[in-house]
């Protein structure tokens, strides 16, 4: 506010200054103009416009003095007079002289503000200018009028002045601008104290003195006001400092709240009454009526009576045991009945027998019928119901395809519809079918079975008329002809268009045609026969033949179609079928093998291995590969250990096996002998091979001691796996995978002759840019390969693909406050669910940022003195305590 006031005052000042300047200028101008004006006025007065007399009179009456002056006719007087009357500035013209420094007595210090009380001025100032002196002398009455006009005071007030004027005679009348000589000398200088003295004791003196005292202190000259912008800036700065001071005290408070993981607004606070009883107990009577009631209710007599009454009421409450028993029994009975009914309903509902339900339904309908018959009301109702149903049916025409909806669907095609529509449509169709069936059944039951004539599938065997047979044959013939004529066109696209397919189709078609022709001939012959029989009216036997023929005729056509179809199918899935067949066969074979016919045929792997490693290592791999097959194994062992214990085992196995084993023994022959000992060596190795014989002793003790010189184990293995270079294969595979991901750059090549002058290019080789490009591409590839996880692992291929489905399990971008991936990933490493944390930790781990109870009013933050150093322990405190300490928004008070 102060600032504003200041600004305003300053604005005023500048305005005033400006106005002052304007005044000065205006004064000068007016001086000039006033002389011109004067002449004009003179002219006017001399040759003024002829006013009507009445008006002139009026003017005279209003302004007698002016008129009088005019009539007096002095130029100068008119001038001054006009100045006094029209313009205040004209009057101050005298002051302008002082500005020009003509008058040395001019006080250099301007003191605009200084005002003196009126009486004081009156007492002291010898007022007038020298210019006016003569005029005043000449016309004191006029001066009084002037003063009167300026000040608005009555002219008598100025009377005293005149007297003094009369006393003092000086060139200039004494005034503040023209002080007396002794004042100027300085000896008898009048101080303000002097001036104040006479006022002592008067009202307002003390205030005046204070003001004066204050002013006296301001000895320093007032400086020019600062520029507005600067001033504003200063003010703003001051305001900012102030507000900063105000706000900084909140800082630790706010900081603490910001750092707190949870803010609590759930202080236990009475939210109101919990029960009606609590509300009632709090009731205090306020109005007169209430008070009266309360007094009545709480009267001791009433209370006592109520108490006594209550006791009596309790007595009334007593119920006899019999009553209770009876009631219980009744209830139990009802419950039992209900339960039974329920059970019965359940049982009936559970019965799946259709006949039972049919019978039940029948019973029901019978009962209904009976009721209809008996009760005219019920009959009426029933009729109404049926009528309603029929009407509904007719309205919807649900069973017909003629509705708009159905038509539209048919138009669009049933395949284009969704499942629900299809279902609805099929339902409609089925309804239709059911209805027609019903109608037909009604008709059939009532009339002849003419309707069955059209269907050739209908049972005619009973009749087996010759005519019918003939008809049938004719039909068959027609159809075969159709088959013969039809499907000439071969498919032009797809698999069937492939040449070998086309060939196959053609072949098949030819075969089919052949068959059809045969069938046709047969038809013809049979037709003839039939004709003959017709003619000769032959015996039943032949008719029977015909009928049987019919059966045959029906069949071939079907067969033809069937075979073609089947073949087609075969053709389509030919490969897979045959494969699966082969599989099955193989499976069978293997099973057969397993059940044990020949040792040679075993699972694929070992057999393959055998092939690879040759005959000499046969038995080794048998032992490795086929632990799964018990028979061969035992047989083998029998073969290779001809000791007593194992012979026993052999004997225990059935004779057939034994013989086979023998056969194998013979087969293996010498080799088995040779391999005995490596085998035992193998087992030794298994057990750890260091002086540990307990598990091997079975073999060692039973088997003959070796005299054969053994190749070392490593050697044996080396020999065994010499054939397949697994490592190289793997490296090749890895390379293939790498190439798939970052293909190797193509080698730079040139088209022969392209851009070459004969032979020149050849000498220079490829252009350098090509080589450079190639090199760059290669380098890029190498770099990307180096980045792979398996870059330094020769024997490992690790897929770098993430997979599209797994993408949704990752975040696409780093979530907001995080800036580093590691930090984010480490922040989510801990599960926070109840399955992974003890109960004590779950609450703190899953607490929301703000905990508040519904209905709690959150009050604005209150100031609280918080030491800055509290923060450190803030973390250590448990979360709820933190909340308690935080007084920001908690409504504790």
């Amino acid at each position, binding site marked *: 506010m102060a600032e504003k006031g200041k600004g305003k005052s300053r604005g005023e000042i500048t305005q005033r200054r400006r106005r002052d300047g304007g005044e000065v200028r205006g004064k000068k101008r007016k001086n000039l103009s006033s002389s011109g004006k004067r002449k004009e006025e003179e002219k006017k007065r001399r040759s003024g416009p002829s006013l009507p007399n009445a008006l002139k009179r009026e003017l005279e009456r209003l302004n007698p003095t002016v008129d009088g002056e005019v009539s007096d006719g002095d130029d100068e007087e008119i001038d001054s007079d006009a100045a006094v009357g029209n313009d205040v500035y004209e009057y101050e013209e005298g002051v302008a002289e002082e500005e020009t420094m003509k008058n040395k007595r001019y006080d250099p210090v301007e003191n605009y503000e200084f005002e003196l009380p009126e009486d004081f001025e009156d007492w002291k100032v010898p007022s007038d200018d020298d210019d006016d002196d003569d005029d005043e002398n000449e016309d004191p009455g006029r001066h009084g009028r002037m003063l009167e006009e300026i000040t608005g005071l009555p002219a008598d007030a100025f009377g005293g002045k005149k007297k003094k004027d009369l006393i003092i005679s000086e060139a200039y009348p004494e005034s503040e601008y023209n002080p007396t000589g002794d004042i100027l000398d300085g000896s008898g200088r009048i101080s303000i104290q002097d001036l104040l003295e006479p006022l002592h004791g008067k009202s307002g003196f003390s205030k005046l003195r204070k003001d004066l005292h204050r002013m006296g202190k301001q000895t320093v000259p007032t400086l020019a006001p600062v520029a507005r912008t600067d001033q504003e800036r200063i003010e703003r700065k001051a305001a900012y400092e102030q507000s900063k001071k105000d706000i900084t005290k909140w800082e630790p408070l706010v900081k603490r709240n910001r750092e707190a993981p949870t803010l609590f607004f759930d202080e236990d606070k009475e939210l109101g009454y919990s029960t009606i009883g609590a509300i009632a107990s709090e009731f205090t009577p306020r109005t007169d009526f209430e008070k009266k009631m309360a007094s009545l209710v709480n009267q001791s007599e009433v209370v006592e009576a109520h108490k006594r009454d209550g006791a009596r009421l309790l007595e009334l409450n007593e119920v006899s045991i019999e009553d209770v028993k009876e009631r219980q029994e009744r209830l139990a009975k009802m419950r039992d009945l209900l339960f039974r009914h329920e059970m019965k309903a359940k049982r009936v509902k559970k019965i799946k027998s259709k006949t039972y339900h049919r019978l039940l339904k029948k019973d029901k309908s019978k009962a209904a019928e009976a009721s209809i018959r008996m009760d005219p009301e019920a009959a009426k109702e029933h009729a109404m119901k049926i009528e309603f149903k029929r009407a509904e049916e007719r309205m919807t025409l649900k069973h017909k395809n003629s509705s708009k909806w159905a038509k539209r669907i048919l138009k669009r095609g049933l395949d284009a519809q969704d499942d629900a529509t299809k279902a609805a449509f099929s339902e409609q169709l089925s309804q239709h079918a059911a209805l027609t069936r019903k109608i037909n059944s009604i008709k059939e039951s009532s009339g002849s079975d003419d309707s069955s004539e059209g269907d050739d599938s209908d049972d005619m065997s009973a009749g087996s008329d010759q005519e019918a047979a003939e008809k049938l044959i004719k039909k068959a013939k027609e159809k075969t002809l159709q088959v013969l004529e039809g499907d000439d066109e071969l498919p032009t696209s797809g698999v069937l268009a492939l040449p070998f397919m086309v060939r196959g189709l053609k072949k098949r078609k030819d075969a089919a045609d052949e068959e059809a022709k045969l069938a046709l001939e047969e038809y013809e012959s049979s037709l003839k026969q039939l004709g003959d029989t017709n003619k000769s009216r032959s015996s039943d036997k032949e008719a029977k033949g015909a009928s049987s023929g019919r059966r045959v005729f029906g069949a071939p056509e079907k067969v033809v179609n069937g075979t073609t179809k089947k073949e087609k199918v075969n053709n389509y899935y030919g*490969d897979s079928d045959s494969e699966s067949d082969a599989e099955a066969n193989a499976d069978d074979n293997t099973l057969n093998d397993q059940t044990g016919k020949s040792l040679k045929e075993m699972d694929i792997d070992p057999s393959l291995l055998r092939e690879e490693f040759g005959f000499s290592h046969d038995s080794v791999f048998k*032992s490795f590969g086929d632990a799964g097959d018990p028979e061969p194994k035992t047989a083998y062992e029998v073969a290779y250990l001809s000791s007593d214990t194992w012979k026993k085992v052999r004997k225990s196995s059935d004779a057939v096996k034994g013989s086979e084993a023998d056969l194998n023994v013979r087969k293996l022959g010498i080799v088995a002998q040779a391999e005995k000992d490596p085998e035992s060596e193998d087992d030794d190795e298994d057990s750890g091979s260091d002086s540990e014989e307990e598990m091997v002793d079975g073999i060692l003790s039973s088997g003959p001691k070796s005299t054969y010189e053994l190749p070392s184990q490593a050697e044996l293995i080396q020999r065994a796996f010499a054939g397949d270079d697994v490592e190289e294969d793997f490296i090749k595979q890895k390379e293939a995978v790498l190439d798939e991901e970052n293909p190797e750059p193509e080698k730079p090549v040139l088209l022969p002759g392209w851009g070459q002058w004969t032979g020149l290019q050849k000498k220079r080789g490829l252009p350098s840019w090509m080589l450079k490009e190639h090199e760059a591409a290669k380098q890029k590839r190498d770099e990307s390969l180096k980045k792979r996880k398996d870059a330094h692992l020769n024997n490992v291929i690790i897929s770098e693909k993430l997979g599209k489905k797994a993408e949704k399990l990752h975040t696409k971008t780093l979530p907001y*406050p995080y800036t580093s991936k590691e930090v984010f990933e480490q922040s989510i490493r801990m599960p926070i669910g109840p399955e992974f944390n003890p109960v004590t930790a779950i609450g703190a781990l899953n607490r929301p940022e703000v905990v508040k109870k519904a209905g709690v009013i959150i009050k604005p933050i209150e100031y609280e003195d918080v030491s800055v150093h509290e923060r450190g322990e803030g973390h250590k405190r448990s979360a709820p305590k933190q909340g308690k300490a935080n007084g920001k928004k908690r409504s504790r008070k």
Partner: protein
Amino acid sequence: MVVKVARVQKTNPLPAVEQTEEEKMSVKKYLRGEAADLGELQDKKLKGQLAVREELYGKSAQAAAQAEKWLMPSEGGYLEVEGIEKTWRIKQDAIAAEVDILSLRKQFDIVLPDFGPYTLDFSLSGRYMIAAGKKGHMALLDMKNMDLIKEFQVRETVRDVVFLHNQKLFAAAQKKYVYMYSDNGTEMHCLKDHGAVTKLQFLNKHFLLTSINKLGQLHYQDITTGEMIGNYRTGLGRTDTMEVNPYNNVIGVGHSGGTVSMWKPTSAAPLVKMLCHQGPVTAMAFHANGHLMATAGMERKIKLWDLRKFEVLQTFPGTTKSMQFSQKGLLAAATGGSFVQVFGDLSGSQEYSRYMGHSIAKGYQIRKVQFRPYEDVLAIGHSQGWSSILIPGSGEPNFDTWVANPFETRKQRNEKEVRSLLDKLPPETIMLDPSKIGSVKPAMKKKGPTKQDIEAEKEAAIEDAKKTKLKKKTKGRSKPSKVTKKKQEAIMRAKKPFLEKQEEKVKKRKRVEEENQLPMSLQRFARKVPAS
């Protein structure tokens, strides 16, 4: 010789100092990795928030570690020897002399010589076992009560059998198809799509039945919806070694070329393919922690791999048809024909050494070794039936009833079934590193210009064409009509290559579609080059 065999549920109070050490370890375990370095963060607010979070995590881990003490009271069993005695010299009868009666009951042999080598599978809780003889004999047993629940003959080769999500359902790979049976032997489904399967696995968190068939095709079928999730050709021939990595549910398949490939159900290419052996891979097994794999090759080597680095840790001599890691990390391998060797990480530094051995009667061909969950028992399926031996320290002593409860009631089982169905994971969550779920998607390689780029390029070309100033020509060749015509032609010329490219793309797509219309087997006969 002094044998100390501590059985399951035998608590042994340890010295206090050690406990704190242990506690520290478990706190570290529950922290699930290290906190991020907050020092490098610029954002003060985030820093503050994360600091608070980390503190909470720390508290949670501390609380969990403390609770562990009470929730996991039992301590695993162990074998202790004195002096120069070796654990692998201790035989089963020696153990039997030391253990309590209940444990003694778990040592037995079942002799069933008629139906060939047996394969076994335990339910998740270890309470139920299914045994399937190669010749079609199948038996479902309650191992707690030693009850035979159901036994039946399918009169077909049975190659493998697995429990599905609980003991009420199991799947068997038979001669031609895979069948699903209920616990009373009713055939529930016949899964023909799988073909002649050699090995089955079930991913219980995803409800995926996984199989590999004789043609080397890998199938994933969701057993809740019946949907075939994936059908991939390994292209590496027939195999019967397939195992699940329990940590990430990635399927590992061993091939005849000595390679092991790892698969997930949503990609047709293997995640990892590694050359492990010179000869065919005969058996493999995964450790429960997910970064240890054991493979056995026909060249008489058993190798232990670190799957984080894909490097060999150890190599043992020996050949095996079946291997398995126990819950506590012991590795059982059926070396030789009838000998079971158990390796153990005794020093705790992933240095596996011989721990125990067991040889069954010579001539019994072991087909399958399987540790029983939550028990110190190893079941061995062989050609003459199956036997069960005690391997102290193999099973997890404390079971979590939310995970697997051996004492489950019917109601609990039903509830768990519903719960596990609700918690079923989608197949795409199977990946090599499941902790990467939720992280930022790895940057994809840029594949050529995008559609916008092409569009912008086209626009630029057109603008250029418009801007080119034509020469002022005489004899009416600079008539306004001619000029406009020329300009339009220039624009068309600029557009032309882009349009051509587009057209080509459309054509190519059409061609591909045409090719796709043909059945697979006939596509090779389709014309590769369009008639021009």
